[in-house]
């Protein structure tokens, strides 16, 4: 579709009255055209502002409690999403293996040999148990553990997560794991803060079935850094995520 054709469709697209086929064609164009994306965003903002000014009214005060109660009932009765154990097992196995490798290769004065030995034994026994390596983190005197779940930002299918460990003993680290089916090569990985500072990690190598991992160990304080971004080298951002408390 040309820009002229897309812009003619944007009012209907914004107001949700295009067919799914037509909307998909518009979305495809918007993904590659910043000019039309700006036009779409303008119309989208027009709808938001119109709604806010034209028909925003304070609902009755007791409506909130009613809605929260109904949601609570829904949450209790709705089935929880099934955990895809293969992927989570892969994730935690890789993570535990990385932690074992880190524990074996780094010298942390605050860790007694007894604690390290106990950790290695614990990790080997419960590689798929997130709680066991969290115990390890607490044994190290960790200040904070934050988790990032990646959100896909382009047509490239991406899945993965990152763990940010903020230590109060001078050794913080970041572990990034991703699965990009059908992609073989490197991804650049960066960790950024709200004020625009960024740290580059070693490239993440995607091989075989599309899995890869990278990590960073640093004596710097990374508590202000919260966003992890994956990018194809010299290409677009394919995924990003912002840390939340686990």
């Amino acid at each position, binding site marked *: 579709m040309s820009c002229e054709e897309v812009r003619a469709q944007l009012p209907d697209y914004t107001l949700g009255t295009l067919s799914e086929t037509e909307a998909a064609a518009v979305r495809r164009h918007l993904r590659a055209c910043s000019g039309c994306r700006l036009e779409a965003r303008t119309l989208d903002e027009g709808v938001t502002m119109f709604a806010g000014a034209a028909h925003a*009214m304070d609902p009755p005060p007791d409506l909130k409690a009613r809605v929260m109660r109904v949601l609570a009932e829904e949450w209790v009765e709705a089935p929880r999403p099934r955990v895809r154990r293969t992927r989570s097992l892969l994730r935690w196995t890789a993570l535990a293996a990385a932690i074992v490798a880190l524990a074996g290769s780094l010298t942390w004065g605050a860790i007694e040999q007894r604690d390290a030995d106990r950790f290695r034994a614990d990790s080997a026994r419960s590689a798929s148990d997130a709680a066991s390596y969290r115990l390890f983190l607490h044994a190290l005197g960790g200040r904070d553990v934050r988790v990032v779940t990646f959100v896909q930002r382009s047509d490239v299918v991406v899945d993965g997560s990152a763990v940010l460990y903020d230590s109060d003993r001078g050794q913080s680290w970041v572990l990034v794991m991703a699965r990009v089916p059908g992609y073989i090569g490197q991804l650049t990985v960066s960790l950024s803060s709200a004020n625009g500072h960024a740290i580059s990690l070693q490239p993440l190598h995607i091989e075989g079935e599309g899995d890869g991992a990278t990590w960073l160990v640093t004596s710097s304080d990374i508590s202000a850094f919260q966003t992890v971004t994956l990018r194809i080298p010299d290409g677009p951002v394919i995924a990003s995520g912002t840390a939340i408390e686990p």
Partner: protein
Amino acid sequence: MRRDDRSDSDLVRAFMARDEIAAEELYARFAPRVFGLGMVMLGNGAQAEDLVQDTFVKVWRKADSFDSTRGSLDTWVLLVARSLAIDLIRRRVLETRVLAAQEDPGDVSPGAGPEEQAETRDMASRARRAMAGLSAGQRAALELAYFQGKTSAEVAELEGIPVGTAKTRIRTALVKLRDALEVGHEL
């Protein structure tokens, strides 16, 4: 991380995960507009409250379909609410027709008019000022498309104008409103 710094995607993801704080944040952000939409489209306080409840349940059930790259969370939620309101109007029209067909014509009582709509004074005045800047044709096209979910082609047919003109009127109305109301915020 402070809750109010969350992106819309993070907020929706937290809501999907049954986070009560996320639910309350979404309620604070959208309940006034959804309730107001219900008052305008349904003309009835009780049904407007039902619309708010139904919208939030539907938003939770459909949360995994929200994609921030396709548009804002605001528009997505408002369109969910509008769709529910339109369904309710259609059901109400159908029930009225069925009821009319079943009743003895002599027993039909005149339908009650819409209840008085409550409006906050500054919101209403801003809306009136912004809408006053639109032509009659632009205002009619936008209201048909927004409140009734009419496509540009349907608006064109109803208004007796070319489809291209209908599209232009809707677009111009949205752009004017965005510009005018944004200026209002800055003053």
